[in-house]
């Protein structure tokens, strides 16, 4: 079936979803958020690379866009935390 590789990615996404729901029942304490966010990042990367075709994209610009957005957001949140956490 021509759609096979998309179905495989979908299976991976569903499995990762099951994993993340299970880990939430376990208690990782403060690391818990990092675990679920890491799994979310993996899932998103799968969607970006294979459903949104970034892995077969030739233009470098398009491959850099999401990392740029994430970096920008991380910096905005990070600098805000220098205020919120040290008042």
């Amino acid at each position: 079936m021509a759609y096979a590789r998309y179905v495989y990615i979908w299976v991976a996404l569903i499995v990762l979803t099951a994993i993340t729901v299970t880990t939430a029942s376990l208690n990782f304490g403060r690391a818990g958020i990092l675990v679920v966010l890491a799994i979310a990042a993996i899932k998103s990367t799968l969607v970006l690379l294979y459903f949104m075709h970034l892995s077969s994209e030739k233009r470098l610009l398009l491959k850099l866009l999401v990392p740029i957005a994430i970096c920008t957001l991380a910096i905005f949140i990070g600098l805000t935390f220098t205020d919120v956490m040290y008042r």
Partner: protein
Amino acid sequence: MENRDHGVGARVGMWLFLLSEILLFGGLFLLYSVYRAKHPGDFHAASTELSRFDGTLNTAILLTSSLTAVAAVFSLQELNKPKRTIFFLGATIAFGLAFLVVKAFEWTAKFEHGLYPNAAVLMKRPPGEILYFGLYFTMTGLHALHVIIGMTVLSVILAFVARGKATQERSAALENAGLYWHLVDVIWIFLFPLFYLIS
């Protein structure tokens, strides 16, 4: 200049637009990060009010809708089978509708329990929980709005395909609509653990 990739210009534009959407939600993620860091216990307590089943179901629905969305694009761009594209687009829109139905049930349940902004019941809860629900409705609400926009765009594209305005040669609009839908999915991939999976 470019050879066969005629839609590349439109695709660049669409990705830049998606970037702006990420930053739009980004402001809300900023608020969420700060308030969760300040009220970790309250956020956990409040999150137990949500139905993990509904959240997981909705996640599965959107992930499947992403599959049908990319299948729709693939069917036209690579296989040149517009009828399948129409089927897959219809399926994607249906999944979107299912997502909204589940969300409507969730929200209604919250309203009935008095857990919505400015409700008397909510006001008696600790501030962290008030903020949690303020952010919950804002972020899932903005997301749901984007689901509706996505469904509208996909419906328009479906009409294009049905009328032959979108073809294998002219598939940029279809592809870009798919990209938009995938972004809606990616945002939910992050919203789900942040609201439903606080351990």
